[in-house]
């Protein structure tokens, strides 16, 4: 990937600013068609430039149209295309380093732009915060699904497009003048009556501006609100150690990990990094290695629980007791020498409080602690952000006592955060002391705790100024609406998890003239400069004092980080016992939940987060990693609770998935939503995902799901108890991408415990069926492709390590982004017509109270004897000499025969014109419909490529498409191509570099498929299997490598590495074989030789339909 990233320092600044949008752009691109592209693209340039010309034309017209409505600020560097920027080749993508800011961190990125529009997000492989790796590690860095999907939000047609005053359009200048007038108004009174409500941010610039403004407006009050707030990690560490510190977890060094409701693989900050670290700690290259062991105690079924070796599901109140018991056990088992009175007293108190826990649970805790103690400094205890302070204190204390500090956890400097809370702001508002309220980002009307009655409270401010990316719920009750620039259009900065400063640099001029947070702050504070570019430069000037500034700045932008800017680690000393004791006495234990005293857990949604991504179609349609539900949130309950309450999700074998709608009452507030029976969930606990039920999200997200915020109060932001579920008698149709959860004893995902793996590292292949053993006699009809493959230079293949894969689905979004995969909407998902080329299959095995979950990324397996190819009547799917199963969209007539014959069902069919029609009108015939006042048939007659999307949607959404990949029309089968476009680019580049020499083999692992590149775990390895040293060849040679459905003799080019679990034999829930293996044996499978073709297993056990959920 980095080969195309500009490495030179010169000209960087020029390139970081995009060209001024306008007609000249289009003219230039037209003229560029005649430039001799001497880098091997010569043969293609005519076609490419014509297409690109058209695209640029439309993009430019749009930008001109929108951009000229406001008075634009001067652009620092406009590069007229009369002079070609150095190193720019028209039609060749460029890569720029930037970062996506998150709450307390940022995701370092390298973004691909194509002719001025960002089209694909990748991780920044150079970023220094990398887990230490061995030589076999990928040289790339994964991202998370939100970063992958963020490029779609950039082109969201529903983004705030205008400056608004009381709902009316206002000229941009008027809004800016108003901000300046606010600054003038408050300066004489020191900012009294000025309140700012912000989101969390790691931006050094914002911090600097805040302190500057504080000096000018000392009485202005700063508030921070995050519905999902990770600051508790910092608070607990700072409190316990008496220093301003926050923890940085180093899972890659951990041997034993205990998670107390910490969903560090999905719901916590920097999950892409933790997934990577966990994968490293679990790496298994030879049988003498031991993967790390993960203990998880949690209330919901999270991705982290799914990847645990031992998982315990407990309601939140029990979980608190478990944490207390763990601490007590630890003191008992380990701190023998400190048997001082206060320690013993604390342990006794903890133990007393935890006494309601059943014996099996305390046994679990006891054995787990013994294992942690045995591993000593290799252990790590994590507490989830939802847990009360006490649990965090316990976790930090345990880490310290275990000696893990400096090894699996580091404490780094973290400045104190003096900002007030939203509750304080509400009190000020109620008291009428707020004159001007500035809401920077966030969406408090939607997310604020229900008891604050925020809509009413906000109106009490005389003036409300709102900076927001959308005209959403909060905008509706604000006086001024200022459109916020997307991070891909903004200048800014941030700190990643380890504190390294990263730049946020724009890849495109703000599409709708939006402002950034720092610009608004600067204007409000009356500071100069107000230009975010200058602000960030000024901050950077302070951050790096030595060296030539301009040079360092350019390197900063180019590399995407500032070397050596990571927060320094702080030595932490002894634990202050009294703090633990004090926290203990402040934390009240709840009663055991019962059927009518249900505990509620508010969860960050895996897709729309706290609601901020609600209008992102890719994320809405991304199946939840555990439930596989799309386009909705659900009230998740355990099977036992569902039975007690007489609730059941009916499936009718996948035809009509309907969930009963229940009314969830909690302290006088109530919501209604569909239930979902989730195996493994704690009993008498409901999980509510936040972020749904938006009323003004946009055309994608409005009205999707129910709003869990309306239950949530500031006193109990994460857990609440005493809820009551009652039936409403109505049902609700859900869109779930996977109907059947059991593997039915088939050896699809193969796994074993560590001991089995050590005894026989080829255990996965041993489950192959008899029929897939090589035949003794040569084939009567040898595959003609076999000969071709020997002559071809490359043979592409993929290996997926199920040991590393956690099922985060970043790959799914990456694939969607790279390959122009449309979303289809909830009704179409209900008909199983989602278009994902790559999906993550999820299976449950074992008892419904606590099943084991298995993930399997499933994509086109590129079979060498591909069943799809032989049945296509029109030669639309064929094999090439490099082993790819190629789909010729132009040739496809859409018989769908190939899909029927595909054993993996990875081919997707475009049933409607998903790209060209709005979701609500997919099945409306153009014969009877009209768009923008024109009969659709006539529209089609004028322009058959146009479709029936409204103008704004059409103009923006086509910008997100990857120009290297065909946008498929309806009636065409499509599927994973192994990112053919990337393969070809790599080959072309190699040929150009090879010049006259004959060394045209692409270097091993010099490029990646989109899924591989996005995978934070490094679970996916793609490359040339013909080259013995390529990562994929090495991976395929691993003893754990196996093929799915081996008995069909498909010779699939995608192979999987079997999963190895590392359970603790001393644990009460230990079982010698994974549940899936048990089921396989029960269905007649054999650990040596797969399913027997001789022995007759009874028909009943051979497959029992209807065994769902």
């Amino acid at each position, binding site marked *: 990937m980095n080969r195309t990233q500009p490495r030179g320092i010169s000209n960087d600044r020029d390139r970081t600013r995009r060209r001024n949008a306008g007609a000249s752009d289009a003219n230039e691109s037209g003229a560029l068609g005649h430039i001799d592209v001497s880098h091997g693209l010569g043969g293609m340039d005519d076609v490419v430039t014509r297409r690109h010309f058209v695209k640029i034309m439309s993009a430019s017209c749009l930008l001109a149209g929108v951009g000229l409505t406001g008075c634009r600020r001067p652009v620092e560097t406009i590069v007229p295309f009369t002079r070609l920027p150095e190193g720019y080749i028209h039609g060749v993508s460029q890569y720029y380093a930037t970062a996506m800011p998150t709450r307390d961190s940022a995701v370092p990125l390298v973004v691909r732009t194509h002719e001025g529009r960002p089209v694909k997000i990748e991780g920044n492989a150079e970023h220094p915060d990398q887990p230490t790796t061995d030589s076999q590690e990928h040289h790339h860095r994964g991202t998370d699904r939100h970063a992958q999907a963020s490029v779609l939000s950039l082109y969201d047609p529903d983004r705030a497009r205008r400056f608004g005053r009381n709902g009316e359009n206002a000229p941009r200048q008027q809004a800016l003048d108003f901000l300046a007038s606010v600054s003038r108004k408050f300066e004489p009174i020191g900012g009294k009556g000025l309140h700012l409500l912000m989101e969390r941010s790691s931006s050094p610039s914002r911090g600097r501006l805040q302190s500057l403004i504080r000096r000018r407006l000392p009485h202005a009050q700063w508030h921070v609100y995050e519905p999902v707030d990770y600051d508790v990690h910092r608070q607990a560490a700072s409190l316990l150690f008496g220093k301003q510190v926050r923890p940085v977890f180093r899972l890659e060094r951990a041997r034993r990990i205990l998670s107390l409701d910490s969903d560090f693989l999905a719901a916590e900050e920097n999950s892409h990094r933790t997934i990577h670290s966990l994968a490293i700690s679990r790496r298994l290259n030879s049988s003498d290695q031991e993967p790390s062991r993960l203990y998880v105690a949690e209330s919901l079924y999270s991705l982290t629980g799914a990847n645990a070796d031992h998982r315990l599901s407990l309601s939140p109140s029990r979980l608190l007791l478990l944490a207390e018991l763990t601490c007590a056990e630890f003191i008992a088992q380990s701190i023998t020498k400190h048997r001082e009175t206060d320690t013993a007293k604390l342990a006794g108190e903890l133990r007393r409080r935890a006494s309601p826990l059943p014996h099996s649970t305390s046994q679990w805790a006891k054995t787990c602690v013994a294992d942690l103690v045995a591993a000593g400094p290799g252990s790590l205890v994590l507490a989830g952000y939802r847990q009360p302070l006490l649990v965090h204190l316990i976790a930090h204390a345990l880490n310290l006592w275990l000696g893990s500090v400096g090894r699996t956890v580091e404490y780094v400097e973290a400045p104190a955060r003096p900002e007030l809370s939203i509750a304080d702001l509400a009190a000020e508002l109620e008291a009428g002391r707020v004159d001007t309220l500035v809401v920077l980002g966030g969406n408090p009307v939607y997310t604020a705790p229900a008891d604050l009655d925020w809509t009413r409270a906000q109106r009490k401010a005389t003036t409300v100024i709102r900076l927001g990316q959308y005209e959403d719920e909060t905008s509706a009750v604000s006086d001024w609406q200022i459109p916020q620039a997307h991070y891909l259009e903004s200048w800014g900065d941030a700190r990643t998890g380890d504190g390294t400063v990263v730049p946020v640099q724009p890849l495109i001029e703000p599409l709708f003239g939006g402002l950034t947070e720092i610009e608004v702050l600067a204007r409000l504070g009356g500071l100069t400069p107000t230009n975010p570019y200058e602000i960030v430069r000024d901050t950077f000037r302070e951050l790096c004092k030595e060296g030539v500034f301009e040079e360092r700045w350019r390197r900063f932008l180019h590399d995407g980080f500032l070397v050596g800017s990571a927060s320094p680690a702080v030595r932490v000393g002894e634990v202050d016992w009294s703090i633990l004791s004090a926290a203990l006495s402040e934390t009240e234990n709840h009663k055991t939940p019962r059927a009518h005293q249900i505990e509620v857990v508010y969860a960050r949604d895996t897709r729309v987060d706290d609601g901020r991504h609600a209008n992102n179609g890719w994320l809405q349609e991304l199946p939840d990693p555990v439930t596989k539900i799309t386009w909705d949130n659900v009230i998740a309950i355990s099977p036992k609770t569902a039975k007690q309450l007489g609730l059941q999700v009916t499936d009718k*074998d*996948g*035809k*009509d998935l309907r969930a009963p709608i229940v009314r969830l009452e909690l302290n006088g507030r109530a919501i209604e939503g569909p239930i979902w029976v989730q195996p493994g969930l704690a009993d008498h606990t409901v999980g509510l995902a936040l972020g749904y039920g938006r009323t003004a999200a946009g055309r994608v997200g409005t009205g999707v799901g129910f709003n869990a915020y309306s239950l949530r109060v500031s006193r109990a932001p994460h857990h609440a108890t005493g809820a009551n579920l009652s039936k409403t008698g109505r049902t609700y149709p859900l869109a779930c991408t996977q*109907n059947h*959860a059991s593997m*039915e004893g088939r050896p*699809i995902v193969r796994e074993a415990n560590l001991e089995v793996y050590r005894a026989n590292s080829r255990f996965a292949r041993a489950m192959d069926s008899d029929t897939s053993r090589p035949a003794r006699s040569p084939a009567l009809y040898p595959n003609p492709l076999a000969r071709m493959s020997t002559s071809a230079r490359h043979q592409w293949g993929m290996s997926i390590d199920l040991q590393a894969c956690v099922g985060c689905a970043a790959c799914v979004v990456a694939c969607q982004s790279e390959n122009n995969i449309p979303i289809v909407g909830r009704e*179409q998902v209900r*008909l199983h017509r*989602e278009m994902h080329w790559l999906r993550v*299959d*999820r*299976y449950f095995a074992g008892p419904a109270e606590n099943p084991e979950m298995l993930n399997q990324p*499933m994509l086109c397996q590129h079979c060498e004897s591909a*069943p799809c*190819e*032989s*049945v*296509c*009547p*029109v030669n639309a799917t064929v094999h090439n000499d490099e082993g790819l199963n190629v789909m010729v969209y132009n*040739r*496809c*007539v*859409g*018989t*769908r*025969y190939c899909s*029927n*014959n595909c*054993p*993996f*069902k990875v081919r997707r*069919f*475009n*049933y*409607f*014109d998903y790209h060209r029609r709005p979701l609500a009108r*997919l*099945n409306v*015939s*153009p*014969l009877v419909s009209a768009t923008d006042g024109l009969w659709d048939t006539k529209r089609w007659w004028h322009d058959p490529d146009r479709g029936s999307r409204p103008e704004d949607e059409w103009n923006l959404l086509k910008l997100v498409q990857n120009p290297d990949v065909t946008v498929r*029309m*309806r*009636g*065409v089968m499509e599927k994973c191509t192994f990112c053919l476009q990337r393969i070809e680019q790599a080959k072309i580049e190699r040929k150009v570099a090879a010049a006259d020499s004959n060394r045209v083999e692409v270097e091993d692992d010099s490029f990646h498929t989109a899924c591989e590149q996005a995978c934070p775990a490094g679970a996916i390895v793609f490359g040339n299997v013909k080259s013995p040293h390529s990562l994929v060849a090495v991976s395929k040679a691993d003893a754990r490598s196996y093929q*799915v459905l081996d*008995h*069909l003799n498909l010779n699939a080019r995608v192979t999987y590495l079997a999963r190895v679990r590392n359970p603790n034999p001393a644990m009460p829930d230990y079982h010698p074989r994974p549940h899936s293996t048990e089921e396989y044996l029960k269905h007649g*499978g054999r650990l040596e030789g797969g*399913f*027997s073709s001789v022995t*007759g297993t009874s*028909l009943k056990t*051979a*497959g029992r*339909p*209807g065994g769902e959920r």
Partner: protein
Amino acid sequence: MTKATNMPEAVRVGPPPHELERPPLIADRPGVGWVSDVVARIAEGPTPRWWWLAFGTALLLLGLFIAMVAYLATTGVGVWGVGHPVMWGWAVVNFVWWIGIGHAGTLISAILFLLRQRWRTAVNRLAEAMTVFAVICAALFPIIHVGRIWYAWWLFPIPTSNGVWPQFHSPLIWDVFAILTYFTVSVMFWYTGLIPDLGLMRDRARTRFRQFLYGLFALGWTGSSRHWHNYQKAYLILAGLSTSLVISVHSIVSLDFAATQLPGWHTAIFPPYFVAGAMFSGFGMVLTLVIPIRKLCGLEDIITLRHIDLICKVTLATGSIVIYAYIMEALAAWHAGQPYERFAIWNRVVGPYSWACVIMLIGNVITPQAFWFRKVRRNLALVWILSIVINIGMWFERFVIVVSSLNRDFLPANWGYYAPTWVDVCTYAGTFGLFFTFFLLFLRCLPVVAVAEVKSIVPAADSHAHASGDSNRC
């Protein structure tokens, strides 16, 4: 009535005893001309009211069909219920079903002709017409069910400017050939058989217009013995050709399934199983059509109870082959030792589509057993109802094969369910409009019974009738 007096008494064959005498196939009316009168009257007489009613309904349904196809073509295959993992739904079920219906005509005309089954003559014209129209209905489905209808012609081996031929490994291409050939030969066979009767119609025509049209299509038929000689040779050759096609067309349709590797489809028994099923459903449909037509058109003397009785027997025989195939299919799956194969059959029986399987078993296994009883076979109303049950059963057989194999295959993660939409249902209903529009026009315009052939078996035509005692051999 002559006696072979010079034969020794020992070898002399007397007439069989009365109780062994077979009942006559055709009513014993004086002369042979009455056959022409009865048959030609249907086309020549005034249009009966029932015809207008039926024709109006058929036209409405045809309009529905056209509307549904227009909706489908302009909007996308998504208007149907198909999705993952069941990518083929009613369209393919209907296709196989109509093709199966299209079997009986050629079977009656060709195979029974070669086997010298004289009873075929009364119903073969009707059955052949049914074949031609059913094949038209069937052939439409593979064309309209593709995603890009406007490129469906790529399935035909036409060397286009892009120089890509069809992919000859694909059973769908074999389908194209098999159906086209079958359709062409069926039409030729039907038309060849029509020529003497068209001559008859021409000669009876009262208006110039009719005379011209019938004359045009009668190809100058004079009834000379030379014409008869050539005609019968051609007919025999076509019968020989058609016989192989009767077997091939449905075998190849079955290969659409058998050539895949999907459990439940990938079965070597499919070709003979499908042919038997097709004959079974074809005869079922013949019964459904013949029983009302003989009543409405006054053909009771030509298509007699004997015919119905015999058709029922053939239905019973082919139905038994189908039952045998069901048992073999299950046995083979059990013997495979593969959970996937076993599960496919198990899923059919007790899976989410078990209701379809039950309908199939009622229609195809239980219903034909009634035909063991002569009383049932002679009860026209009952036979008509049973024949419709058989048609439904056979439709569900195809549904079970297509859908309940696809819905749960190898990876349980893919398992799903398929349900048709109103468009699926209306499209299927629309094909009946197409079929009956053609069929009703046929009834009003052409001789619905092969007059010339029936004349050869009327009792009066057999000069040896009572000598050999088996004048109405069947």
